[in-house]
């Protein structure tokens, strides 16, 4: 049996207009230590699947099983990096990580907790900024704090919800490396599930890519395997034939129309 398993899952919400099915017939098996991306258009239920693993929302049908046990709620065995950093603005960088460590790793002594926080601050190169508040650091740094916070509680599974969506391309590339570095430093033992809408990001980071259909009642359209060798290097990876092939494949799956022709211009003019 696989490490993280989603079985025939359906998630529906009660809305004013009645039952709204976000995702259905979701079946997914993830091995320990794998990096898996879920990709799709906005509103296709990517985050819903993520939340079901996090234990924040519950399946209306089927179940989610982690390490042999059904997920009943949030727990310190899963670390989450939220879409919008979600740092607490009144706490310093250090305190933001410390409070999470303090809550999740109750058995550690105070000194051990401090040591853990400082170790992860050094790993993401933020040790010198530990006394700053979130508003005093850049978006990229905030996301590094969020990643360090998720890693610091030493979870088995890391859940990343569009973690780099709000960042510019250069910062994003640097953070991809940062993420893989942390993953390597923990002996690639941590399973990472990431939601994204960035095709290049998904290929560069993942072992498998789950492509979603459009919602409502979204399903899994296809699962792509990525066999690019690790450690991956941005410059070399993007030129490999496999990378290009997967990129083409994903583009055609996600974007119906990849070019515009002359007629589109005339139409727009007529409309204006």
């Amino acid at each position, binding site marked *: 049996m696989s490490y993280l398993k989603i079985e025939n899952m359906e998630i529906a919400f009660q809305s004013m207009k009645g039952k709204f099915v976000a995702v259905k017939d979701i079946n997914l098996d993830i091995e320990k230590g794998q990096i898996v991306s879920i990709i799709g258009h906005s509103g296709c239920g990517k985050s819903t699947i993520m939340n079901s693993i996090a234990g924040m929302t519950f399946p209306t049908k089927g179940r989610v099983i982690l390490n042999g046990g059904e997920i009943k709620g949030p727990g310190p065995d899963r670390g989450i990096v*939220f879409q919008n950093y979600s740092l607490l603005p009144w706490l310093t960088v250090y305190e933001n990580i410390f409070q999470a460590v303090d809550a999740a790793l109750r058995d550690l002594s105070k000194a051990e907790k401090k040591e853990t926080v400082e170790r992860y601050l050094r790993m993401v190169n933020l040790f010198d900024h530990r006394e700053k508040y979130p508003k005093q650091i850049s978006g990229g740094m905030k996301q590094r704090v969020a990643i360090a916070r998720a890693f610091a509680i030493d979870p088995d599974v890391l859940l990343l919800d569009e973690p780099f969506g709000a960042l510019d391309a250069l910062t994003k590339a640097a953070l991809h490396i940062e993420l893989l570095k942390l993953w390597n430093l923990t002996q690639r033992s941590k399973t990472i599930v990431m939601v994204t809408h960035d095709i290049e990001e998904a290929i560069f980071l993942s072992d498998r890519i789950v492509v979603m259909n459009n919602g409502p009642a979204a399903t899994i359209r296809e699962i792509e395997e990525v066999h690019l060798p690790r450690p991956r290097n941005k410059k070399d990876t993007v030129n490999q034939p496999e990378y290009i092939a997967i990129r083409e494949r994903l583009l055609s799956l996600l974007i119906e129309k990849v070019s515009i022709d002359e007629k589109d211009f005339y139409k727009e003019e007529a409309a204006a």
Partner: protein
Amino acid sequence: MKKSITLTTSLTTDLAGDEPSVNRLTPALARLFEVIKSLGYTLVGFTLLTGLWFLISKITEGGLPTPVATFQVFWELVKDPFYDYGPNDKGIGLQLISSLGRVSLGFLLGSLFAIPVGVLMGANTFCKKVFYPIVQILKPVSPLAWFPIGLVAFESASMATIFIIFITSLWPTLINTAFGVASIPDDHKNVAKAFGFSKWKYLTKVLIPFSLPHIITGLRLSIGVAWLVIVAGEMLSGGIGIGFFVWDSWNALSLEKVISAILIIGLVGLLLDRGFSFVEKKVTYSI
């Protein structure tokens, strides 16, 4: 203090043979200029008010005392604020201290009650549904209406005054606290959920830090209304206090004293408000 610092800096620059640092002084001068300007506006406003006051006292032929006569009385009052010639003749300072004491006690008790209940109302839908209708019905009632109940309950006019200040202080704090707590973003709640924050950690690291600016705003509004109500309350209760002083002055037919008291009440109210607005700025974090 400030003078000596400027002196030493100018001395050292002179000794170093540098050009006098005119540029470094400019921001300070600009700030000073701003202060003088705003003081100027205030002065213009009060001159206009005093002019109008003078005009009305002329038209009414002394029905309203003139500004000069009033300021003489005002000066008499503030010159010796702490004299005590028996129960019906005490200095304005003693009256103020007595009123401030009652307001503080009533406000403190009210806040100690309103903040926790506000937190409950904001955090828990059940509590909100139970308490909100009560708040809605009692909030529009003038706190003075509670005076008889205070009298019955405590059998003391002074305690009854504190009781109405207690009631007054409840509503703005209650409503603002509940609003602050209810508007904690899901993002913050999710962090607490995802990392398994205990109830206590959630309270001290998420709920209170987020709602504190709202709570302080509530307290600021409460103390403002409490200061409004104390004057009326003490007119009812008698004995001592700034409200009693206003009523007593009216009975002694000294409108000069009444107007002086109005000015003093206004100044104290302004100071209370400024104090809370200072705290408000201190606890407001920016994102």
